[in-house]
């Protein structure tokens, strides 16, 4: 079983985002970059499938700037075998262009499973996985919480507001991982050491001119400070008045 997992380098979720790059990009200074948490579920799932089957190869594919390799090594430490880094110094923000670049790289690869996180937690578009599957013309099931592979088929579960769906799909197929799929492991030190020596191929990302560009980023407006209206019963009317007329909550 050959599995390819696409991972993206994103700012840590606790990062205090600063806008840089002429107001259209995140300023990377002082930002800790991590594997997007949903992508980590995908990596973990790939490793579990390989462990369960006792064979297979896991390839990591990541599109991003040079330091995307740091998070690729983290996926290696978890148990992935090798990978390709599609270098993109421009930090493209057009999901379709990214999907095309990834699909171009994937066309040369043999795989049964193609895994993504359901979305990268930087721009939260949630589009790339599905777009890549479409470009490769393979089936895709998004936001899965369970994945079983047998006899050239995958049986997956996904949750929706209506309840739970169980989907059977022929391989090769693509899946995007939702929280709940698994609990990613903490790598063993031996594996961290081994990860440093696993092969990592680097090539430029074949990005077409983006059809979508971010024109301007802005911070959310500062929240007005809290107010103490008063104390005791006599302040209730004033509070009601403020809730009605100022906050428009009543």
């Amino acid at each position, binding site marked *: 079983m050959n599995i390819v997992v696409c991972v993206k380098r994103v700012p840590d979720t*606790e990062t205090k985002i600063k806008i840089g790059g002429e107001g259209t990009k995140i300023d990377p200074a*002082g930002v*800790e970059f*991590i594997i997007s948490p949903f992508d980590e579920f995908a990596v973990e799932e790939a490793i579990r499938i390989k462990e369960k089957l006792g064979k297979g190869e896991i390839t990591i594919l990541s599109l991003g700037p040079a330091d995307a390799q740091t998070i690729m090594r983290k996926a290696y430490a978890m148990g992935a075998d090798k990978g390709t880094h599609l270098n993109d110094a421009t930090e493209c923000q057009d999901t379709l262009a990214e999907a095309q670049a990834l699909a171009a790289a994937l066309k040369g690869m043999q795989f049964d499973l193609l895994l993504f996180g359901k979305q990268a937690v930087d721009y939260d578009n949630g589009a790339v996985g599905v777009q890549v599957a479409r470009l490769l013309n393979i089936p895709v099931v998004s936001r899965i919480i369970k994945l079983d592979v047998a006899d050239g088929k995958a049986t997956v579960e996904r949750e929706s507001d209506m309840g739970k769906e169980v989907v059977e799909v022929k391989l090769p197929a693509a899946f995007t991982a939702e929280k709940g799929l698994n609990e990613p492991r*903490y790598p*063993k*030190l*031996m594996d961290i050491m081994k990860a440093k020596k696993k092969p990592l191929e680097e090539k430029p990302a074949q990005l077409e001119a983006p059809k979508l560009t971010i024109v301007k980023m802005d911070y959310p407006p500062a929240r007005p400070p809290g107010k103490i209206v008063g104390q005791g019963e006599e302040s209730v009317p004033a509070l009601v008045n403020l809730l009605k007329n100022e906050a428009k909550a009543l």
Partner: protein
Amino acid sequence: MLPIEGKIFLLLLIGITVYFFTKRAQYLISLLKLGKAEDRSDNSGERLRFTLGQVLTQACALKNVTGKDLAGIGHMLLFYGFSFFVVSYGFHIAEGFYEKLNPSLFGEAFNNGFFFLLDLAGLVVIVSVIWAAIRRYVVRPERLVPSLEAGIILIVVFCLMILSFMTEGFRFLAEPEPFTSGAFVGKFFAGMLSGMGLQAHVHTLFMGTWFLHMMIVFGFGIYILYSKHLHVLASHPNLYFHSTRPKGTLQPIKDFESAESFGVSKVTDFSWKQLLDLYACTECGMCSANCPANNSGKPLKPKDVIINLKHNLFENGNNLLTKKEGEEEPLIVGSVVTHDEIWDCTNCMACMEVCPVAIEHVDKLDDMRRYLVLMESNFPAEVQTVFRNMENNSNPWGMGMATRADWAKDLGVKILSEAPGEFDILFYVGCAGSFDDRYKKVSRAMVKIMQAAGINFAILGTDEKCCGDSARRIGNEYLFQTMAQENIEIFKNYNVKKVLATCPHGFNVLKKEYPQFGAEFEVIHHTELILDLIKNGRIKLKGELAKTITLHDSCFLGRYNDIYQPPRQILNSIPQAKLVEMDRIQKTSFCCGAGGGRMWMEELRGKKINEVRTEEALTKNPDLIATACPFCLTMFEDGLKAKNADEKVKVLDIAEFVANHLL
């Protein structure tokens, strides 16, 4: 004195004893050699002084004597008494071969004095043995588990003493000239025995009791090596090879790149000294009696860890010695020492502080943690988040690292990451001081104090990183060393000479464990600094605090760094403050439950340690509880909430007491 047949028999006895003693000793040493190498050859002078000091003055046993536990005095009596007998056996054997080799060789006065003291020692030993038996089989303190071995040894020692007196008695009757006038108990026995109509056989009886006596002595000499009384011989080398590293420091893993395994999973992963610890254990149970895990009903009992490891080593000893290359060795982690035991430890070091024979319990448990974390990635689930948080945001809470210095906004503090400048003291705020809402108040209090004293200090701001203590104590030595090296680099870049820490965990690790990685700066704790400021008159305290305060000693400040007095002296310098001590303080203070990374783990077994300690504090009816550690502070606040006492009793850090009373 002895006829030729007797001399031959004595020689035979000695030969047999030497043979079995040597055989067993060689076996014990060959087991030690299975352990990993560890250099403990440094400071031989200091080591010898320490050992003799502990043994000859019996400080090893006497240090644990309290009003409630006098056993150490019993040990001292038994030790001195029996040691005298050991000397006498030398004379006995010498005299057996050549009759002039006896104490009278050194004159009549010496001879009489010697036998007087010997008889006195015999009485002392008898009294101590009876005392020990009553303790074990009647009083039964919790820390002692009555064992067959202990019973055998007490009976044998008792019999030896009686036989010794009988031998003396028969000798008085058998020899025309009394061999001494000093043996007063022997004389008493002679009187008793002479009335029994044995006159015709006194010489035979003297020889008989003499040989029986010697046979038991020799037999005892061999038995020691097979029993828990191995400590009689092993405790001396164990004291000699005690750790001379700064107190409580863990040893670094030196080579991550080429090592094939990390930590301890098999008994031979321990160093020879860690194995010698097992031999040295006296099974006194002081470690378990002082262990917060054991005292809160958890599986961990440090004594049992040591004894179980010892028994396991002896059970597998032969297999281990004959094991062929490549053969698997049984795991001790998860079987001999369970995961629960390994994770229960708070690293409070109470066990090691009270251990009379310098056993290193914490190192062993932390080595097994290293195995579980680094080799197996097997640890309480909640810890994974902590590791991730430390990796990604350099604090266990996982708060955004850009907000690290937000607490210091508007305080006029020099923040080096924003504007480098000159400073005398670097205030290493630590994660709790930076991110924990409650402990941020302590950071602010410290700023207020230093500003009042006119100290030129600075903080690193967002360049400050987590100290890594929790990672190290949980067993993630790799993560810890990454963080330590990063911090040392930052400190070097800012040319830091002197560091102030409020959190005792940061204080301890910066001061004593960072030098393992090349750190060269002075580190002080805020209680030390504040006391200096008060003494030098650089700050003055005003107002009155007519309250009852009880003080909790933080393990990493107290036992790890022997800082017991500064917090007390500071509290006593606040007018009218009344300090009431808890029952367990200073060296035997009871942990809050948060050390050793336990701060970040669920406490699923037994009672909650912080509640046990809070209950103890509440028996003193305090208005305030004083601490000098963010973890202790949290644990007490939680404890007070659990006991519904948080309205009545408040917890304050020493810095807050002072900041509230600045002139």
